[in-house]
């Protein structure tokens, strides 16, 4: 093959360009420290990266859902503990006079205390969450579910579900009818109308009706058990949320590892490649400089 000086020059330019292109690619890798800077760098991996990013966003969203629901459940749990305490107090009051030998003054005191306890139970059952929602009101969040004037329940028995993982929901609230009225099913905690039990007890104490007082005490026990059942249900839901958080967190770690395996540059490898490429480039430059100076003109006088 006949070689001309222009061929040498063109080849030198072409090859230097190729060298410089590889060098600049390696420099981009080492400065951004990311393997994929545009989708065309590796289309398949870019797709996987985007899918992982979407899943990470969803996981963060689920964790945020769980945190908010947990706060709501903490408030519910505190209210249930209060209710349970009131039931214990009422029970001990009844124990003190259940023999039927108490005098009228004693019975009046007990009756007054029972009325106060019922008011406290109603107040506790009208607890609002940080957002101003009545936690025991179902979805009728803005009207108080209970009142002192009537034993009726003004809320509904709707369970508010929230998403805690993809296609997995968890009921967040406990409705007032289930804990204080003993109605509602799935879940049902018992069938005691606690508010009515208090009314019955007050009437029985006032009338010193021993049979009715005994019946009322039994109902109080059943009511206390009803609230305990609700606490157990709530506790098991909170445990589930805890384990969901752990699962989401571990999923997130796995996903982040996958993403960094794809995306993060192995600096040691790039460093070695970069120095190899630099050596190759400077060798090419010096060879080009030497060859392009050679000409017959240097020797013709």
């Amino acid at each position, binding site marked *: 093959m006949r070689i001309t000086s*222009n061929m040498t020059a063109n080849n030198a330019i072409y090859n230097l360009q190729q060298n410089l292109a590889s060098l600049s690619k390696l420099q981009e890798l080492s400065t951004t420290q990311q393997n994929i800077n545009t989708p*065309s*760098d590796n289309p398949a991996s870019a*797709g996987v990266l985007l899918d992982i990013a979407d899943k990470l966003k969803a996981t963060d969203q689920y964790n945020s859902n769980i945190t908010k629901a947990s706060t709501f459940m903490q408030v519910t749990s505190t209210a249930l503990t209060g209710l349970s305490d009131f039931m214990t107090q009422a029970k001990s009051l009844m124990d003190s006079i259940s023999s039927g030998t108490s005098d009228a003054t004693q019975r009046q005191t007990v009756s007054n205390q029972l009325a106060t306890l019922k008011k406290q139970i109603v107040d506790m059952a009208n607890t609002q969450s940080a957002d101003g929602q009545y936690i025991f009101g179902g979805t009728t*969040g803005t009207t108080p579910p209970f009142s002192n004037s009537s034993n009726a329940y003004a809320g509904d028995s709707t369970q508010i*579900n929230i*998403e805690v993982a993809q296609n997995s929901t968890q009921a967040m609230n406990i409705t007032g009818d289930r804990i204080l009225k003993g109605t509602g099913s799935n879940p049902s905690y018992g069938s005691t109308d606690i508010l009515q039990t208090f009314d019955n007890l007050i009437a029985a104490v006032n009338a010193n009706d021993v049979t009715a007082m005994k019946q009322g005490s039994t109902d109080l026990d059943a009511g206390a058990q009803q609230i305990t059942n609700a606490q157990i249900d709530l506790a098991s839901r909170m445990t589930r949320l805890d384990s969901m958080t752990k699962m989401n967190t571990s999923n997130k770690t796995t996903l982040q590892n996958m993403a960094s395996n794809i995306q993060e540059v192995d600096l040691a490898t790039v460093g070695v490649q970069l120095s190899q490429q630099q050596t190759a480039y400077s060798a090419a430059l010096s060879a080009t400089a030497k060859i392009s100076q050679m000409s017959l003109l240097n020797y013709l006088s």
Partner: protein
Amino acid sequence: MSLNSIIQIGMSGVSAYQVATEVTGENIANVNTPGYSRQRVVLETAPQSSSNGFSLGTGVTVTGVQRYYDGLLQQQMATAQTTLGYDTTKSNVLQQIEPTFNEVSTNGLGAAISTFFGSWQDLSLNPTGTAERQAVLTSAQTLVDNFHAVSTALSDTVTAQNTSLVATTDSINATLKSIAQLNGQIKTTQMASGNANELKDQRDQLVQDLSKQIGITSTENSDGTTDIKFADGGAALVTGQQAGAFSLDQTNPNKYVVQLTAAGSAGPATTVTPTQGVLGATLALRDTIIPGYQSQVDLLATTIASKVNTLQASGADLTGAAGIALFAPATTSAATIAINPAITGTSQIAAAASGSAANSGDNSNALAMAALQNDTTTMAGSTFSGSYNTLVSKVGLDVQSIKNTVSRDEAFSSQLSTLRESNSGVSLDEELTNLVTYQRSYQASSKIITTATAMMDTVLGLIS
């Protein structure tokens, strides 16, 4: 045979080597001229004469100046140029589009879709909250803005391709005209038995330039002219000294139609569909490739809008009324998607189940809305985000493969150029060697003349 004939022989050498030096000079001067083919003098012995009893030549004569030229290689180079022109144009435009879809390093449409459905998740935890409702409206607006941005970027590129047709066809027409003119000059020069090497080099270079713009086939005629035919349909672009011309039917300002008046044809221009070279790539980008991406984005916009609107209608807003469409009902593309102007306040977001009372804390519709993020029934088995991610990958794949194709084309072109350079390129070392050779030959021929003159002097001395 006389002393004079010795001087004549010397004279023929002097003038032949003068021409040879001129040709060498021309070669050296054009060492960097694109398309130049090196030339050489063809030397032959001058006619014999036998006036002194035996046959002897009468010196040297220059019979022609030839250029080193490989017609087949030129045709191969033209084909390679056509491919390179197509791929380079496609690669440049796709690389301009890629940043619009670069979800890897920036947040774009994909993030907006996730955020939109995420805001419904937040709403499901506090269905009556004003802040959460406002967040839904804001993220819906962001989603709309992102659809507009992508759609505008794509349609701007389509417009740019359409407008560039004017410049491309103008430059093709100018080249066709120049080739036809050069054909005329070559023919005239050859008829006067002149040397048309430089004109031919110029014309070959123009043919190379032309082949980058459109697909062509060329044939060289015996009179030195070149005829050029259009590869897409075979119409004559240059016949002898006549050139055809491309024109644009601009009836539809968004979609010019390319037309061609063939060389030597008087009739009206006919519509052609170029598929090769820069012109072919421009049309393919404008009519097929970019609209392909556009239709995917449009499908995503219309599907999200219709799904969200349907769910809005099946839920109840904060006043207990059935929800109204969140996105403008007439949404047909990513360019026109908008928030329904009838949505004036946060209370119109339908978070509760249908039939719920006013201010209901029910969140079932918000939950259903949030669940749309994982819905795989409408976008051919993938979620909305997944479908967009697939589009991003597809754009990435298209850019990657065309980049690879271009670098392969460039390597092929450069190899062909090397082959051409090897045959037709000027080698300075070779020319310098020739220069020394011709100079020595010129000196020797001059010496013959001085010797003959001295002999003549001797003879004249005898007479006096």
